[in-house]
């Protein structure tokens, strides 16, 4: 029996194997994904992002635990960075997710970013598709501890939760572009710590600003700011309520489909770009590329002229 069929029938090891294939990106992965794709499109994909140490893993653990009390099945993809030097990675998110052990309604997979920037791994969205296809109703994606510009998650998830914690910087940090702008749900975690109310207030100001920019209609989604204590789960049910409300909002406004089409477009362009580059490099060959690099480094030719010459040499 095909791996994809086994996974669709609930075989968890087949599921794990397919995810590995997808991560390693071979021909087998492509055919498995092709078989699974018709089954996708059911899951609510929820991204959880924020700076390192704000409590992403702990909050994902609590959220998944809460969803299980509602009988909702949960797939978790937790991304941690790969070393740019050795390619190795220490994936430590499971440490905070031990409450979820032994529950067949939960599947957790740790992913190394494998050189990809933007807070996710290259294969993350395909791994999410696999979990979606086999029937997990909610797929939680925990990004790499994000700085300010790791906003890839907003393209992959339907709903993005951005987590802040008290004492992580002043108001100006919150006013900067990037992470704040992608939040559908904004959470101030560690709400039992001093300064949480101040952080929430500072964020409130930013949200006000964000929502008055442009000519957005009256029914535009304005992220609410919630406070949670991930250690004991306080505020988690309210957070889920907001996430579910966002899904209803996307559905009722037609943005669900619009977002999906935008995501597919980006995905298709990325894959086309990679495939075209692969094909081109295979034809041009390493030696010729090295020669061009040498010439550019020696100021003999500039990079744009070189690229044009390579492409024209192709014709």
């Amino acid at each position, binding site marked *: 029996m095909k791996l994809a069929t086994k996974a669709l029938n609930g075989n*968890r*090891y087949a599921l794990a194997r397919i995810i590995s294939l997808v991560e390693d990106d071979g021909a087998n992965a492509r055919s498995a994904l092709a078989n699974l794709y018709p089954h996708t499109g059911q899951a609510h994909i929820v991204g959880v992002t924020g700076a390192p140490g704000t409590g992403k893993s702990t909050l994902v653990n609590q959220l998944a635990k809460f969803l299980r009390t509602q009988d909702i099945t949960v797939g978790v993809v937790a991304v941690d960075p*790969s070393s740019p030097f050795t390619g190795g990675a220490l*994936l430590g998110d*499971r440490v905070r997710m031990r409450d979820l052990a032994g529950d067949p309604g939960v599947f957790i997979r740790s992913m*190394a970013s494998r*050189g990809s920037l933007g807070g996710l791994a290259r294969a993350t969205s395909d791994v999410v598709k696999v979990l979606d296809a086999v029937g997990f109703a909610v797929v939680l994606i925990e990004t790499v501890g994000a700085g300010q510009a790791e906003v890839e998650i907003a393209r992959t998830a339907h709903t993005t939760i951005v987590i802040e914690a008290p004492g992580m910087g002043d108001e100006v940090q919150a006013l900067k572009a990037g992470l704040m702008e992608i939040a559908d749900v904004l959470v101030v975690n560690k709400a039992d710590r001093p300064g949480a109310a101040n952080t929430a207030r500072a964020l409130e100001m930013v949200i006000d600003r964000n929502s008055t920019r442009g000519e957005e209609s009256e029914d535009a989604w304005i992220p609410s700011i919630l406070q949670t204590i991930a250690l004991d789960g306080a505020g988690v049910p309210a957070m889920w309520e907001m996430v579910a409300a966002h899904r209803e909002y996307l559905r009722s406004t037609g943005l669900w489909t619009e977002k999906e089409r935008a995501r597919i477009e980006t995905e298709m362009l990325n894959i086309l770009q990679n495939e075209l580059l*692969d094909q081109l490099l*295979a034809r041009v060959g390493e030696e010729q590329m090295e020669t061009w690099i040498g010439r550019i480094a020696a100021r003999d030719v500039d990079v744009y002229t070189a690229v044009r010459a390579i492409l024209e040499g192709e014709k």
Partner: protein
Amino acid sequence: MHLELFLKDYDKGAENLMKERLRILIAKPGLDGHDRGAKVIARALRDAGFEVIYTGLRQTPEMIVESALQEDVDAVGLSILSGAHMTLVSRVIDELHSAGLEHIQVFVGGIIPDEDTVALKEQGVAGVFGPGANTEAAADFIRQRLTES
């Protein structure tokens, strides 16, 4: 450097034959709370290019095997300082077998008497590392065991 990445990528024919990255689960079964050794070896394996899934303290054999399955690892490394290694390791090995994961190799680190080392290896443990073990050598040994099969 980027070019190297792309060139490596387009030479996919050979690349696809082997797994891109070795994945290993590092776990501490049982009740002792000393995780320094587990963290040191996790870090060393990371530096040796492994993808290390670190699960932390007080894992039951069932939890370890469940994680190993979900993460599709090539190996499991168990750090045990409590003296309960004979019981815990054989339970992990049994659980791996009953989950159909006998291909996953098991390594053990900790304070293990020589006669127990022999017994563990008879049960199928692929390597045992004591307190004085050189972490780089351990990583090399593990890589070798995982790639030769």
